[in-house]
């Protein structure tokens, strides 16, 4: 019964999110609205994270499983990528390396800046 209740809560949040997604005029994915909604519910302590632990662990641990059907769909569009396979792989790898470097240096820069502002404030006081 406990797990059923948890699934009910999570599915309920997703269902409400789909409604919100239809109401708002911008094309915002309902799954992301669900993520924000659940986060707000957790922040406002309406839901405690341990109340959802069983079903959320199940969903998160098996996330990659849920992509099998979408991945199998590649047979239907194979003609479209046949000639571009090499380019696709190059784009994936190069952009991942660039994103990694850009993110890491930005975080490092922001931390450095924060420390500097902090030490300056202390210097003034």
């Amino acid at each position, binding site marked *: 019964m406990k797990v059923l209740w948890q699934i009910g809560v*999570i*599915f309920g*949040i*997703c269902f409400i*999110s789909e409604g919100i997604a239809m109401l708002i005029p911008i*094309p915002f*994915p*309902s*799954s*992301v609205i*669900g*993520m*924000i909604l*659940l*986060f707000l519910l*957790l*922040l406002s302590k309406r839901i405690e*994270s341990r109340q*959802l632990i069983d079903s*959320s662990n199940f*969903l*998160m641990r098996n*996330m*990659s*499983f*849920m*992509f*099998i*059907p*979408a*991945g*199998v*769909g*590649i*047979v239907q*569009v194979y003609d*479209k990528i046949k000639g*571009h396979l090499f*380019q*696709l*792989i*190059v*784009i*994936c*790898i190069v*952009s*991942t390396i*660039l*994103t*990694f*470097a*850009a*993110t*890491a*240096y*930005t*975080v*490092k820069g*922001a*931390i450095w800046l924060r420390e500097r502002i902090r030490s300056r404030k202390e210097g003034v006081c």
Partner: protein
Amino acid sequence: MLKEWFSSPLFGIVLCIAAFAVGVYIQKLLKTPLANPLAIAIALVIAVLNVFNISFEDFNQGGQIITMLLAPATAVLALSVYNQLDVLKKNFLPTVAGCLVGSVTAIVSIVLMCRAFGLDDTLTASLLPKSVTNPIAVVISEQHGGLTSITVAAVIITGVFGTIFAPLLTRLFRIGNSVATGVAIGTSSHVGGTTAAIQMGEVEGAMSSIAIGVAGLITTLIALFL
């Protein structure tokens, strides 16, 4: 009769679970991230459908039920961010700044390379969100006229690359900061890279899981303006 039997939703579901079990087993056997269970499962299912001459539509009777579970799986990403709230509060601005710059870098570099290689709009839209976690990437791709199965493939390639090369990239770029390493791994290679980040250290793992949610949200917001 056989066709009727295979078009039962249970067929697709059982086939996916069996194929995934084989994928997980092969990875345990070979102990390499190159043997990605999802990639193996997809290949197996395609092989079975081909050998027994079963149509994708019949398979997808069950397939679409599995796909439906993606929305709840995305929603519970909120839990992994919430569970790391203390770490996030301590590093809020650097994390958000990093995810923002990273997401922009990913989108800009993908669009530029797609143009350089002369790929059409459909392929560009399919690749665009490939650095974010799969459930969010699929929706962004769809909204921009991409093909979700290409997006899934690109997300897998990115994840596998991240799992294997995250530690090497960290040394290569001389990051030397656990928070920066974690955010960079999560933003550039989502869940795939995060499995490597968790092995690198507690802070790296926590920051990487936070970055999956934050970068997913930021990429969604950026995609609204494209």
